[in-house]
């Protein structure tokens, strides 16, 4: 055990949610991962566990990850009841040195109404894509475009747009929300595009369509718990939700176009 080595490894036991494909429910299975290097990341600990399962001839735990540097948004584990685990970062950036020796760790999928489980710890988050499909873009074709410096954009506006567009689409905001709402995700994209001059022509239709898509995909509604903000690995602020709401009001109730004149409804 860990005493045989120096202080550089720990032994942890993990309780992992296992759910076969096509089945409604699942169960927890407990595994011990002995001698995990303290320098290892959390997912590397799972790699070590999976390698030992394969060696024993068992089916390894299905979980997703890709870039393992916190930017692609693929990894999505609920660790000890918290989406992405105890630190405010993606699961792949979680390090084993953050855990106590002999820790018992519970690992579950990001499963909500709009994120059904596919297998074990893998969920289907394509609902987020469909929210973007509804209008999370600026309609331009490839080809010659105007000189970008012809429209100056304030430094602060750009920084704000970058704060919003830092979203990696991991879905932690949905998994953390007691209502399974995608408001933070949706509002961040709406806000990013609404801040920029290029985003103005489609601003009203965009917010209306994306808000409707959020409902169509079965996400819950925002109750302003702010759990999403606390779980977002990119620190995206709930202020964008407020701005999405006010944009939505402008687009539906006031229904003004950019010149300020009202549309007949």
């Amino acid at each position: 055990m860990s005493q045989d080595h120096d202080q550089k490894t720990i032994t942890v036991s993990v309780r992992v949610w296992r759910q076969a494909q096509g089945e409604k429910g699942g169960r927890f299975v407990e595994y011990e991962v002995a001698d995990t290097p303290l320098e290892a990341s959390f997912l590397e600990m799972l790699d070590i566990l999976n390698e030992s399962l394969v060696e024993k001839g068992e089916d390894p735990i299905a979980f997703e990850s890709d870039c393992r540097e916190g930017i692609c948004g693929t990894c999505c584990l609920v660790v000890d009841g918290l989406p992405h685990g105890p630190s405010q970062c993606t699961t792949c950036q979680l390090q084993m040195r953050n855990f106590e020796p002999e820790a018992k760790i519970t690992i579950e999928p990001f499963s909500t109404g709009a994120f059904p489980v596919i297998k074990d710890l893998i969920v289907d988050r394509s609902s987020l894509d469909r929210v973007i499909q509804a209008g999370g873009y600026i309609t331009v074709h490839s080809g010659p475009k105007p000189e970008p410096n012809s429209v100056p954009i304030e430094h602060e506006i750009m920084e704000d747009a970058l704060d919003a567009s830092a979203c990696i689409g991991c879905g932690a905001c949905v998994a953390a929300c007691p209502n399974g709402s995608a408001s933070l995700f949706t509002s961040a994209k709406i806000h990013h595009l609404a801040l920029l001059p290029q985003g103005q022509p489609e601003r009203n239709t965009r917010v209306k369509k994306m808000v409707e898509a959020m409902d169509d995909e079965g996400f819950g509604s925002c109750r302003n718990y702010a759990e999403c903000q606390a779980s977002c690995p990119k620190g995206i602020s709930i202020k964008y939700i407020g701005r999405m709401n006010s944009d939505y009001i402008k687009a539906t109730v006031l229904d003004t176009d950019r010149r300020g004149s009202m549309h007949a409804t």
Partner: protein
Amino acid sequence: MKKISQLYSTSVGKKLLVAVTGAIMYGFVVGHMLGNLKAFAGPSALDQYAEMLRQIGQAFLGNGTFLWIARIVLIVAVIVHVITVIQLVQRNSRAKPTRTVRRRNASTLAAKWMAISGTLILIFIVVHIAQFTLGWFTPHAAGTEGFVHGAVYSNLWGAFQLWWVALFYVAMMAMVCMHVYHGAWSMCQTLGLDAPDRNAAIRGAAAAIAIALFVGFSAVPISMLTNSIQSPTDDSSMTEAFEPDGSSESSRSKEGAG
């Protein structure tokens, strides 16, 4: 109407309706609390205030009409608020995480208790109207006068001499306090009025108003229970000011007493 039905078709629009109806009730509750403080000016002041409410707009609309309009607006607001919230809750229960997810403690107790406080407040509203407006349910301490339509101060006095009635009211006011604390801030967020640079101010104002509501509303039952306020029989001006007449008997307003 088209816009309202359009709003009603999305959850963000529904939230907007919850916020707007909440804002209407918020305004009412603040006014109600301020009106209640008239009790400290004496029994007749409170009863006169209640009568005055009936007379708003009298010149155009006739006695009590404005009050009825206000009541209808409030009743519609309550109904829309509650039904919309119920629908949102149904959506949310389908959408919520299927595994138990821990909170990161970012949300306040007030936020977590919105459903509990809201349900209790709804029950409270029914009890409160039945007790002081309609007079269907009128517990009162022995030795006090029973319920008399229009005798606002005396009705209150009779009820709040009972410790459990006073306790019920104070407890419910705590619920109101919590509900409007999160509700007021949440309303600003839903209406898109919130921003990080004014978040602290909005939260602070919401908290200050919520506490003021609790203190203001609790002051009457507590001071009546502890006899630290005038007893209705001490006040001779009460009867000479006016006799409650039949036409206004059922309209002992929520503003004044219910």
